[in-house]
């Protein structure tokens, strides 16, 4: 499982403040902490209004790149911000994200096809997020048609089956799991990712729910996840689950983590 570190996101008040005040040290510290904890990509989301987002996202890209060597995951629905950020990246990034929404397909997909190492594709469209796995699978089929037509090989696409909070609908996680299983069977070449913390929105002790969900998604074929790499308990659970599922050859990652004192 590869981790996309989620912490540099303007919807978090600490980050929003740092972006508005150009507080580079706060952002750099978040980037370093996530890279040190094994994040394969650092997500950057400015979360500011559209007119200033290009400038803010470029600042974030520069600030994070000055601190760490890990590739970025450019998180925006705004083509102008993405285009500006793509000019700045040192390593080909992931683009987060396209979806079945017309504006995103037309505005973001060409940019991703031209300059990114991969693109995250959300199972939703202009009508919203379908409540059923079949509905989401239909969107995923259209998305893969679009990425293929844009010349993006399947192994550079990261499908997010999307999970809603179980607090409002007890079936939310099951729908995400069913979507993932079906999409994986149909498109074995693509990657699967999940911004999984949404699953526990509105519930107490959220990290427990996130952990249970992540492990079930891992079994269903999730191979990347957008999460907090500093959540030690989550990483421990993940390492153990990878051993159990035979995803950790000779249990090496697990025993290495043990020797490094990470399992305590």
């Amino acid at each position, binding site marked *: 499982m590869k981790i996309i570190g989620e912490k540099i996101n303007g*919807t978090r008040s600490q980050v929003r403040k740092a972006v508005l005040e150009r507080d580079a040290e706060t952002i750099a510290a978040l980037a370093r902490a996530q890279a040190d904890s094994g994040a394969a990509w650092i997500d950057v989301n400015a979360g500011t209004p*559209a007119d200033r987002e290009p400038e803010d996202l470029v600042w974030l890209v520069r600030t994070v790149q000055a601190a760490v060597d890990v590739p970025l995951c450019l998180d925006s629905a*705004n083509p102008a911000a993405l285009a500006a950020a793509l000019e700045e990246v040192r390593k080909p990034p992931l683009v987060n994200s396209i979806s079945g929404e017309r504006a995103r397909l037309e505005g973001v997909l060409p940019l991703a096809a031209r300059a990114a190492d991969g693109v995250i594709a959300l199972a939703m469209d202009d009508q919203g997020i379908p409540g059923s796995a079949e509905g989401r699978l239909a969107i995923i089929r259209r998305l893969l048609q679009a990425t293929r037509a844009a010349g993006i090989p399947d192994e550079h696409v990261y499908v997010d089956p999307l999970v809603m*909070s179980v607090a*409002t609908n007890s079936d939310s996680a099951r729908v995400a799991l069913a979507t993932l299983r079906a999409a994986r069977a149909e498109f074995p070449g693509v990657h699967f990712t999940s911004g999984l913390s949404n699953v526990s929105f*509105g519930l107490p002790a959220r990290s427990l729910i996130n952990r249970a969900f992540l492990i079930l998604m891992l079994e269903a074929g999730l191979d990347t996840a957008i999460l907090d790499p500093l959540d030690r308990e989550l990483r421990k659970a993940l390492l153990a689950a990878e051993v159990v599922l035979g995803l950790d050859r000779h249990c090496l990652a697990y025993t290495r983590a043990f020797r490094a004192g990470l399992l305590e």
Partner: protein
Amino acid sequence: MVDRLVTAIAEMREEEALAITRELLGAGTPPTQILDDCRAAMEIVGQRFEQGKYFIPELILAGEMLKAISDLVKPHIKQEAEVKKLGKVVLGTVRGDIHDIGKNIVGFMLDANGFEVYDLGIDVPPEAFVEKVREVQPQVVALSGFLTLSYDSMKETVEALKAAGLRDRVKIMVGGGTVDEKVCTYAGADAFGADAMAAVTLARQWTR
């Protein structure tokens, strides 16, 4: 006797709450009294939510209980006037945003507290708000948004109401995600609320 209903709802005992309602109706208890109990119970639920003892699932279950109870009570209400509403609220998640959890909670907390709520759903364009405000003439408009891009939509919605000459007839509240005082000022709204109970408090003030 009637306190049992308040307790059953507040303690999330759904079947018991419905059984008590049937029993009360059978004994000739005035429907308004039962609805008052529901309101009292929802107040307790709201407080517990604010205190971090209850969570979104409890709010939703409380909403479902309330709906089931009002369905039971309705046939016993002779005149509409018996359930006088406190005021009307037009509610929706603004254009470009599809987040609905917070908006739905605000909706049924307002409803449970005696407001007539017109929920326009998600990704609602400014014109739809204008149209509904013109149609139902609410005292309150509640704009919800989680994404930062929703701030612009909130502003556009307020401006559309202004352009339609309706701005001065309503109070506008905004809320959701990182919405704060600054966003409220930016959008030209009257107040922001941090949670569903804040929405109820504001709506009460504005309809007094």
